[in-house]
């Protein structure tokens, strides 16, 4: 059996002579191509461009009023809660999940901070910790159901949304705690409402908190193993599992951290409102998802950057304030924001395509 000799078959031997480099192609690098490459490598660049363009646009339309330090920092203040909740949302979306209960967790946490302090007389700092703890725990529950029971995130958090919101109303008896009472007895609850003024610019601690959370998560996602694992889980959980990622514990951590961030958002919410109001933050799930998507993060997971989310939130903020300053009727504003959402994503898609 001549054909059954062991060792390389005849035709396999000639490759020794082959050049080491095989399929390499000519590479040209025009400036346009460099830009395209940059857009590819830095997914947050596209929403940043849209953001800058819309600021310039409204600046031209509305003049110095809009282009003032005051108006621009006002936008930061207005998007702070959405931006913080959006950070929580981003983590979950990265894993190809979705978090519909973020708003509910946020408001329940703030209610707990307030009620614990005022109803039970617990020292405010401890109440804050309790509020953060409850947020974290709800996130943990979500994560457990998603990771261990393998229930779809949409449905887990849809159910949790209703549960937490109802619990919030039942527990708070829909009672608002007044800003004046808080100011007097537990000012620490309003900590994130403090502001720093630099000229006309008014930066509040809530906005700083948003920027800090985004910065930390951007670092974690990009530069730590945990971050890489989050991307891998979102990309293809089966592959990630086989490649040695602890998919379940990553998922649970992600939902848990996102619960904690929502708790922080609840705290910042008290700063923003002055008071503790159980009807707040109800639309933050939709707002945060909008920010995430305008920010270029794929709802299918594994792609995008958290900076994009922040720019996404700011884009909506710029448009809302810009349109209101322009004097657009609220109903029309609502309509235009709807169009903006679609347009922003269309532009994003278009730039990416042009860059592909």
């Amino acid at each position, binding site marked *: 059996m001549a054909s059954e000799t062991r060792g390389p078959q005849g035709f396999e031997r000639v490759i020794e002579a082959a050049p080491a480099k095989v399929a390499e192609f000519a590479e040209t690098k025009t400036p346009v191509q460099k830009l395209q490459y940059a857009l590819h490598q830095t997914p947050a660049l596209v929403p940043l461009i849209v953001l800058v363009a819309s600021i310039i646009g409204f600046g031209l339309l509305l003049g110095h009023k809009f282009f003032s330090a005051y108006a621009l920092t006002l936008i930061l203040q207005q998007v702070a809660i959405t931006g913080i909740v959006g950070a929580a949302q981003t983590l979950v979306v990265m894993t190809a999940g979705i978090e519909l209960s973020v708003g509910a967790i946020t408001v329940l946490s703030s209610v707990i901070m307030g009620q614990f302090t005022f109803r039970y007389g617990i020292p405010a700092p401890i109440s804050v910790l309790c509020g953060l703890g409850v947020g974290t725990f709800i996130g943990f529950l979500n994560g457990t159901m998603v990771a261990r029971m393998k229930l779809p995130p949409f449905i887990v958090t849809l159910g949790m949304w209703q549960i937490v919101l109802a619990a919030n109303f039942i527990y708070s008896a829909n009672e608002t705690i007044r800003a004046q009472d808080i100011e007097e007895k537990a000012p620490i609850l309003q900590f994130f409402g403090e502001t720093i003024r630099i000229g006309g610019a008014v930066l509040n601690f809530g906005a700083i908190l948003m920027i800090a959370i985004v910065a930390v998560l951007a670092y974690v996602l990009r530069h730590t193993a945990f971050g890489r694992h989050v991307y891998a889980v979102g990309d293809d959980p089966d592959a990630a599992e086989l490649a040695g990622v602890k998919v379940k514990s990553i998922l649970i951590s992600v939902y848990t951290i996102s619960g904690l961030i929502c708790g922080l958002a609840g705290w910042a919410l008290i700063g923003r409102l002055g008071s503790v109001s159980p*009807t707040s933050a109800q639309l933050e799930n939709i707002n945060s998802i909008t920010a995430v998507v305008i920010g270029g993060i794929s709802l299918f997971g594994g792609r995008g950057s958290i900076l994009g989310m922040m720019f996404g939130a700011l884009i909506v903020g710029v448009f809302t304030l810009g349109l209101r300053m322009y004097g657009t009727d609220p109903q029309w504003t609502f309509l235009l924001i709807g169009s903006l959402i679609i347009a922003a994503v269309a532009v994003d898609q278009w730039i990416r395509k042009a860059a592909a």
Partner: protein
Amino acid sequence: GGAFAETGACLITKTDTNPFFVKMKEGAQAEAEKLGITLKSYAGKVDGDNEAQVAAIETCIADGAKGILITPSDTKAIVPTVQKAREAGILVIALDTPLDPMDAADMTFATDNFSAGLLIGQWAKANLGDAAANAKIAMLDLAVSQPTVDVLRDQGFLQGFGIDLGDANKWGDETDARIVGHDVTAGNEEGGRKAMENLLAKDPDINVVYTINEPAAAGAYEALKAVGKDQGTLIVSVDGGCPGVKNVEGGVIGATSQQYPMLMASKGIEAIAAFAKDGTKPAATEGKTFFDTGVQLITDKPVEGVPSIDSKAGLGICWG
């Protein structure tokens, strides 16, 4: 349930997240317990959620209730369903918001939301005196869907302030230059703050703020405070809830129109009890087509020609 026929009643509110309706429910619950009536409560998920109210009425019919108390979300759209309930022999009473037409219900126990708005409008005008002619007004409304309370209070306020209403069935079509703009608040602190910020960015000289309710007013105040305009800006509101009255006391709100939801509810339950006993139906207030539970202006800065009580008195009776 008991062995003999017990009297069942339903309370259907627009939502059960608004403190106003929470109080209304408390009032109804307390009265029902007193009179030995079984009360079941229903609510829409958001203001304007008509279908949930339709489904609630259907459930009450299936459940064999004797009477229904309802604060209609859509005053016209709910009418055919109310009709069905009445055909089934159920007493239907509208609370807080009349049906359209008003006689679609057996009786209405309500405040007049338009006059609630009117009172604060008149007060604001009188308070400003001559400056009213150059006032800069921010209108903080409820929602883009413009439910009836939203329109009635807004237009009542403008009427009271002496501004031409245009179409009285909607807000936003007025042309008076004193109005800086309208924005929506969802009736809570969050919306109130953001709407206020938006309008301030449009015109920082705003000195009169109308708000749909007291939570929105509290939010607006925070926005004003943030830019150091908390002194010297008039905020007016509607509702007269205890936190709201405290805010009048604390100078956050200049004046508010107080309503009595607990009174509406307890009156409603009484009427159902009477109806169940011998079929008597409640009667209207003298000279009106409905039972007016009244509205009073609460302010610590009373003005000539507009009757009011002070915050102390208001706190004693907040929400009836």
